[in-house]
């Protein structure tokens, strides 16, 4: 399991197609007929589990991997129920095939921290089913009732006759039945007897990633391959007006300059030649809808929109009658907040290798949505999806950016145009110019209180560009009655005892490219909500911890808040530093939510306005932790993301174009700025809850709350740049 099988090396196919051993087919979360057709047409065996006579157990990792480590966690779930000896397990990256579809999204798609949560029961069932096939085969062979058989790691045991047989030896004679045994929830292992889940096994991809052996899409080289770069229109939707392609074609090695809908592609025989030609490109672009947009004016307009009662709004979240409650309130407390555009700046610039030939299409790409890449490529190339092979490569960062797949489509278009395999890469500058941003947001929250100071109603208005149409298309937004669930994520407050709540979205359209960004709306929304909670505590003359514990009604929420406060020794005063506290949820109500609370120990240089967060404590209730050590690493990363967006990250637009170019003018948090971080993972229940984006949303408000406690001044506009902090301190 320490090898790094690239999905295009022959070894995997040999294992799968060789026919030796026992291969079990499971169609999970897919229409079986469609999955079988796709599998048969592509000549592949549709299987999660293969057991070889030497005892090797191969398990498919179905989900795209971007650092979240589900390529270990998902096979581990199967291995647990199979009762596999983990040392004999080999993990393989699954092919792109409907048989491996995400059980909720019905495609191979990684977003919303819902991978482990959604595959959980289907993969447990698949593992139990594989185990049952082995037991049935042994029962028949030994003529004993299957109920007398048990398993130990990779062993079938008949205690009554003291007989034991290894899984490998069973695989040598067993044949998977045409109809696999049905597994009921009661057939699954009791959670209390898990051997692997909750115990931490090493991630299978770590050795490859610690030696440079792991191959990302950008590392792929195929015979006859040429190199492409794409200069995209700086403003979304702008078309090419003119370019100096004739001059570029005179550069030795430049073979093509191709105007496309997205921009101008330059193709050369070598990478360095393509890059040199890109640097020499001169292009003019026609105006588009966003060509006059300037984000410094935008923020003022967005704030004006949330203040104006006449602004047309879509109801995103609603409980009770908040408007009535506010009208009847004895006192209304209001607050305004905003967040700037942020971009992913994932370390591996967007790229893909595509080969369009008479036989079909082959693509090597790091993507969060490989089935979409397949389907789009089929349309571009004019073939059926079964003629498209997508090799799911590990991603050098995803964070929501690689849920958008335009860069793969562009590679297919260029390969089709030049008739050769092409590696199409974005330079860092092109990647940043093509930022698909988390939209800028403006918030106004009005909270109604009764005579006793109790919260009776909460109204939250959010002005932001839409994201759903850019990721899923307009039809999806219409189907959701206009509710952009990405912008409105966690804009509600169900953990608190607030009887009436309304969250509204005031659509803005600045013509910029928007995207899902780690945590989606939960980041900006948690900032506004949790800063507001501190404002309410201040109004009530109460300590923010005590106020939260009194207002929270959800016991899991109370537990994480109390735990984070205990970790931080909340009531202990610090010399030169102040604590701020916030709470954040992650998940969807139908599948359950994870809970987190963060305390930020914060220092401020009042002269310069520079904030330094010296320590973060985080308590996280993640349901059942599958890989606890990895969960801590993911949450640490999420906290660092949150802090980076709280303090320094900011995309601005001028004349509709992104102004930042690289890590120099879009700084992200570096090691010297990282606080000490302490994470405590709390378990509740028997189901794993979302992790990868948890706690991010609590960081911005925790810092704002700390500064408010320290100075009496509220930081309302993230990121809290030194200029903004100085401004706030004056006010």
């Amino acid at each position, binding site marked *: 399991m320490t090898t790094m099988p690239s999905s295009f090396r022959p070894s995997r196919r040999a294992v799968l197609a060789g026919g030796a051993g026992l291969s079990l087919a499971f169609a999970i979360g897919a229409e079986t007929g469609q999955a079988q057709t796709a599998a048969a047409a592509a000549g592949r065996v549709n299987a999660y589990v293969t057991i070889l006579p030497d005892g090797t157990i191969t398990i498919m990792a179905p989900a795209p991997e971007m650092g979240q480590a589900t390529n270990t966690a998902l096979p581990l779930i199967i291995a647990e129920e199979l009762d596999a000896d983990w040392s004999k397990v080999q993990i393989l990256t699954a092919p792109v095939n409907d048989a491996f579809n995400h059980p909720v999204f019905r495609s191979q798609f990684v977003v919303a921290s819902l991978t482990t949560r959604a595959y959980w029961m289907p993969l447990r069932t698949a593992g139990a089913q594989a185990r049952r096939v082995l037991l049935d085969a042994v029962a028949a062979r030994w003529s004993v009732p299957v109920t007398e058989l048990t398993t130990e790691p990779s062993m079938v045991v008949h205690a009554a006759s003291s007989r034991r047989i290894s899984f490998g030896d069973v695989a040598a004679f067993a044949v998977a039945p045409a109809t696999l045994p049905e597994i009921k929830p009661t057939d699954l292992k009791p959670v209390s007897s898990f051997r692997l889940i909750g115990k931490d096994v090493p991630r299978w991809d770590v050795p490859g990633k610690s*030696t440079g052996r792991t191959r*990302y899409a950008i590392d792929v080289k195929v015979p006859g391959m040429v190199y492409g770069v794409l200069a995209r229109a700086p403003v979304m939707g702008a078309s090419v007006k003119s370019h100096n392609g004739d001059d570029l074609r005179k550069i030795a090695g430049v073979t093509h300059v191709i105007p496309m809908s997205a921009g101008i592609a330059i193709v050369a025989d070598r*990478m360095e030649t393509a890059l040199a030609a890109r640097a020499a490109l001169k292009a003019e672009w026609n105006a588009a809808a966003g060509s006059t947009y300037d984000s410094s004016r935008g923020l003022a307009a967005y704030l004006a929109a949330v203040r104006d009662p006449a602004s047309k709004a879509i109801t995103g979240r609603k409980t009770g009658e908040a408007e009535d409650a506010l009208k009847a309130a004895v006192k209304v407390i209001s607050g305004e907040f905003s967040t700037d555009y942020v971009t992913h700046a994932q*370390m591996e610039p967007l790229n893909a290798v595509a080969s369009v030939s008479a036989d079909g299409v082959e693509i090597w790409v790091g993507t969060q949505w490989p089935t979409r890449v397949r389907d789009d490529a089929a349309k571009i190339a004019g073939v059926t999806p079964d003629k498209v092979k997508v090799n799911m490569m590990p991603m*050098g*960062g995803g964070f929501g950016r690689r849920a958008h797949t335009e860069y793969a489509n562009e590679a297919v278009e260029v390969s089709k145009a030049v008739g050769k395999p092409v590696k199409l890469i974005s330079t*860092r500058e092109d990647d940043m110019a093509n930022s698909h941003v988390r939209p800028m947001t403006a918030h106004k929250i009005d909270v109604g209180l009764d005579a006793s100071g109790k919260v009776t109603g909460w109204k939250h208005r959010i002005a932001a560009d839409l994201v759903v149409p850019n990721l899923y298309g307009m039809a999806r937004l219409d189907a959701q009655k206009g509710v952009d669930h990405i912008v409105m994520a966690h804009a509600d407050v169900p953990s608190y005892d607030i009887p009436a709540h309304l969250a509204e979205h005031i659509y803005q359209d600045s013509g910029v490219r928007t995207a899902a960004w780690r945590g989606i709306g939960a980041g900006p929304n948690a900032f506004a909500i949790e800063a507001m909670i501190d404002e309410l505590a201040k109004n009530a003359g109460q300590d923010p911890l005590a106020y939260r514990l009194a207002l929270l009604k959800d016991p899991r929420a109370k537990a994480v808040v109390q735990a984070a406060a205990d970790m931080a020794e909340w009531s202990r005063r610090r010399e030169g530093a102040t604590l701020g506290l916030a709470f954040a949820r992650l998940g969807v109500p139908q599948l359950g939510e994870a809970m987190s609370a963060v305390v930020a120990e914060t220092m401020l240089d009042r002269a310069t306005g520079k904030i330094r967060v010296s320590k973060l404590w985080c308590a996280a209730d993640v349901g059942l932790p599958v890989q606890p050590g990895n969960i801590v690493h993911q949450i*640490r990363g999420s906290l*660092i993301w949150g802090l980076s967006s709280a303090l320094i990250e900011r995309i601005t637009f001028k004349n509709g174009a992104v102004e930042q170019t690289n890590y120099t003018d879009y700084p992200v948090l570096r090691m010297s700025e990282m606080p000490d*971080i302490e994470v405590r993972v709390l378990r509740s229940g028997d189901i794993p809850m979302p992790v990868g984006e948890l706690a991010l949303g609590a960081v911005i408000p925790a810092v704002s709350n700390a500064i408010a406690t320290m100075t009496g001044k509220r930081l309302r506009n993230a990121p809290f740049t030194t200029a903004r902090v100085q401004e706030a301190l004056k006010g």
Partner: protein
Amino acid sequence: MISLSINGRMREVSAAPETPLLWVLREHLELTGTTYGCGIAACGACTVHIDGQPARACATPLAAAAGKSVITIEGLPGGDGHPLVKAWVAEQAPQCGYCQSGQIMQAAALLASNPKPTRQQIVAHMDGNICRCGSYGQIISAIERASKGA
């Protein structure tokens, strides 16, 4: 043709002298462990050693490496048995992994000149290497582990 030593072996490269060493390594020699992050020496993903010193391959013209000894992640002595690689695995440092070759090469240069760095020295030395996943804590722990020979 320009000659240089890559991981202890003399290589002849047919590329223009101004070609960034990064693309020579990655595309001409297929040593893809050295990764492209920024192209302007701002992120550290492409860190290699040139005559024993850490250098950003993206901002090093091939001509500047001519006749010199270049070590990439693939040439790290001992491979999987190198103390830093072992420590990286023990600490489960990588997440997406893309920056980690550069991190390890930067760390190897530190330990070569300062086998027992303080935490402060580690942070100061590593601060030019970005990890967008936020694995900084694991990286520090791994360097400390390697420096202790654990």
